[in-house]
């Protein structure tokens, strides 16, 4: 079957490529505008691997950023935020806050705060889930980091030690000690994944035992830091535990599987189902069909062969190097692997230095360039197609994990792409 599939109905159709934060939010917003949406993804998106916070801009030139909104103007012209703008990022953050609701997201503030990581570093971010809020670093705060013997990837002594020796940016320190509890998630299991543990804490009988164990090691006046395993399907499990323990608790995000990221992902997937986003998971996008400068379809590889999905617009949100949408081959050639789009550098030789612990690798700024409407640009800076938009990790110009800007870029670019696609239509 070649050529786009004709389709019934008059609503415009957008194909969204990718099921990460940018893809999911674009798809949901487009459905709210009454568009037909087909979301195609090779597998589940990376959102559930994330720490479950909203980063907008945490670091710039090696220093901590206090007010991320004010710092946009200091960014170089090549940064995606210069095309996206503060207003769209703010709107994107608000959209996500609305989708996740107050159980999963604390109110959006104006300033970054620092929260402990799983190695006891302090990490800046703008918005956290309510379950992490009590972890914000404050001078003199008394904290006990409580590990669980059966959750092997969280080392309370390491976390507490590093936190205790860190001077806070405004001066002062946290007072931190550590403790651990011995409580299996399931009978006969001595090594539980964080998700298995979180599922156990969705159950009332496990919670009771957990509360007793934690109370036994906490001292009055302490804030209790726990690995992020406080329920996964029940968004209020942590609040119930906190209330029964009788002291403030906070979660610390772990390496994948990250339960806070999974909660976000589950919540957004539930929205896509409710909004009737047609999701093709386990299908691989392999190319475009175009008539001149207009994309008319997306070619997809599924079991049994190729299908073409006819469409009026494409939002390309496949992620970057981490997902394989950008790749470097053995000849150091950099490419965008799905549509073969032009990238900001094609030779990685000078972009990877050998100092593993040194400065950020310039390679990770490579990506696809877009205009103010998020339309993909060719080598001469002109829109390649009138209706091909890019969003999220595929965009060039930012090293997201370094500057802590991943969610802001994903949300802002998704909003801008949807704005462009629905320009002239009434807002829902």
């Amino acid at each position, binding site marked *: 079957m070649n050529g786009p*599939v*004709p*389709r*019934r109905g008059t609503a415009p159709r957008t194909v969204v490529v990718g099921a990460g934060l940018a893809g999911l939010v674009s798809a949901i917003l487009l459905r709210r505008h009454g568009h037909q949406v*087909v979301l195609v*993804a*090779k*597998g*589940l*998106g*990376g959102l*559930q*691997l994330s720490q479950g916070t909203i980063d907008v801009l945490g670091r710039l030139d090696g220093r901590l950023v206090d007010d991320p909104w004010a710092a946009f103007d200091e960014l170089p012209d090549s940064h995606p935020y210069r095309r996206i703008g503060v207003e769209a990022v703010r709107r994107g953050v608000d959209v996500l806050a609305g989708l996740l609701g107050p159980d999963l997201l604390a109110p959006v503030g104006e300033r970054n705060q620092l929260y402990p990581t799983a190695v006891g570093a302090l990490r800046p971010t703008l918005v956290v889930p309510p379950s992490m809020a009590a972890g914000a670093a404050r001078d003199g705060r008394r904290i006990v980091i409580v590990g669980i013997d059966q959750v092997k990837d969280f080392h309370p002594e390491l976390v507490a030690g590093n936190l205790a020796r860190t001077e806070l940016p405004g001066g002062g320190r946290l007072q931190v000690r550590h403790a651990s509890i011995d409580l299996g998630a*399931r*009978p*006969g*299991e001595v090594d539980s*994944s964080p*998700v*298995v543990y979180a*599922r156990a804490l969705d159950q009332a009988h496990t919670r009771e035992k957990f509360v007793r164990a934690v109370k036994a090691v906490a001292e009055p006046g302490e804030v209790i830091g726990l690995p992020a395993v406080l329920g996964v399907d029940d968004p209020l499990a942590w609040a119930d535990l906190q209330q029964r323990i009788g002291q403030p608790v906070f979660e610390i995000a772990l390496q*994948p*599987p990250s339960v806070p990221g*999974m909660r976000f992902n589950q919540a957004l997937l*539930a929205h896509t*189902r409710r909004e*009737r986003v*047609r*999701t*093709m*998971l*386990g*299908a*691989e996008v392999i190319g475009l069909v175009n008539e001149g400068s207009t994309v008319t379809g997306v070619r997809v590889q*599924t*079991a*049994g*062969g190729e*299908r073409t999905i006819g469409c009026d617009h494409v939002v390309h949100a496949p992620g970057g190097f*981490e*997902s*394989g949408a950008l790749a470097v081959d053995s000849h150091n050639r950099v490419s965008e692997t799905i549509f073969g789009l032009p990238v900001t550098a094609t030779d990685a030789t000078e972009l990877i230095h050998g100092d593993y612990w040194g400065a950020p690798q310039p390679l990770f700024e490579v990506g696809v360039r877009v205009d103010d409407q998020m339309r993909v640009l060719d080598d001469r800076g002109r829109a390649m197609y009138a209706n091909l938009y890019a969003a999220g990790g595929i965009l060039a110009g930012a090293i997201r994990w370094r500057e802590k800007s991943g969610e802001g870029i994903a949300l802002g670019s998704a909003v801008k792409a949807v704005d462009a696609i629905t320009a002239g239509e009434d807002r829902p």
Partner: protein
Amino acid sequence: MTDDLNHARDELMRASLDHCVKCTICETQCPVARVTPLFPGPKFVGPQAERFRHGESVDESLDYCSGCGICTHVCPQGVKIAELNIMAKAVMKADQPPPVMKGLRDQVISRTTVMGKAMTPVAPVANAALGIGLLRKAVEKVVGVASGAPMPTARTETLRAWLRRRPAPPAATREPIVFFHGCAGGYFEVETSKRTIEVLEHLGFQVLVPKQGCCGLAQQSNGLFENARTSVLDLCDALRSVGKELTIVSSSGSCTGMLKHEAHHILGVDDPRLLDVGARIRETSEFLLELFESGEVLPEFRRVEATIPYHQPCQVKAQGMGMPALTLMEMVPGVRVVESGQPCCGIAGTYGLKEEKYDIAQAVGKPVFEMVKATNPDLATCDTETCRWQIEKGSGVRTVHPIELLHFALGLSDDLPL
């Protein structure tokens, strides 16, 4: 070692392991690992354990993999985790043969056509026997088929007998298409097959139903690769016998997956006959949605005020086509579909029939059963036969293929509780 297992051994060595970035997404979505610590999860027994195997079997926990394929389905890096594990399982079975009676059991439950042929002539007796608790307990003790496991209901008339008996269908106005009914659709789920044929004929197609056997899927998932290979290629010959360019349609969701990709990826069948059939076959809802969206055929549905629970089976999810059945059912005015949101109903082909896996399969299916009961106590929908039996048994709610709802909405039948 047979050629078939050589493929499994070789493929183990050079499979897609290197693409695994250990992100653990598969671990979080595995329905079996969710309910039992006996199975450590697809990444552990797959990409992780694979490095230690060197063609030998080391970890028996692999046996608890149900083969549902959700791990491959959700993997964002394209690692064929389930395929890898099913192949490793077949090698393990050859290296460490199961006890005689369990081996016999696996042979019997993977031969649906034989069961159908044996049971149809004595349907009332067979159904009564399957309903006798004591007899089922004895069977469980001796051969290891769980006494509580869902069993098909034998029919007194096969699909072929119906095709011979029925009046000539209306003259076709569109091109001929081939119908693949699968073993269950020939002997047990005869109603699904009949109604699919009637809907297709109603839309103007000439439906060709060549004499056909089993696709070999159940043999494959029980590690009987050589038998499976023979079965699938015989089936391809049968389906090709009536026309080499025609679209093939099937309401057997999992058997469709066998022809589209599983026989190729898991058994390593590269035969052009399979690749040809795999490219031409469409699951019924997939076919109809493509057709209706093309605008060529616009069906007249009557209004049906109903909320319909729908569970898409793991092996249909694995085909990467989205959920055409959901979109299709909601084209009927008044119909609202509630989707299970669950990876698997637990049965995973023949997994949930086995005495040692039965409790796990029930625990996996529980959220599906609960959702069905809570949504509509009279009627549920699901695209594959064994999953329907499992859901019906677990929820007590009548469960039909989505085509039956369309059949009803087109005014071709009146016997659904709607």
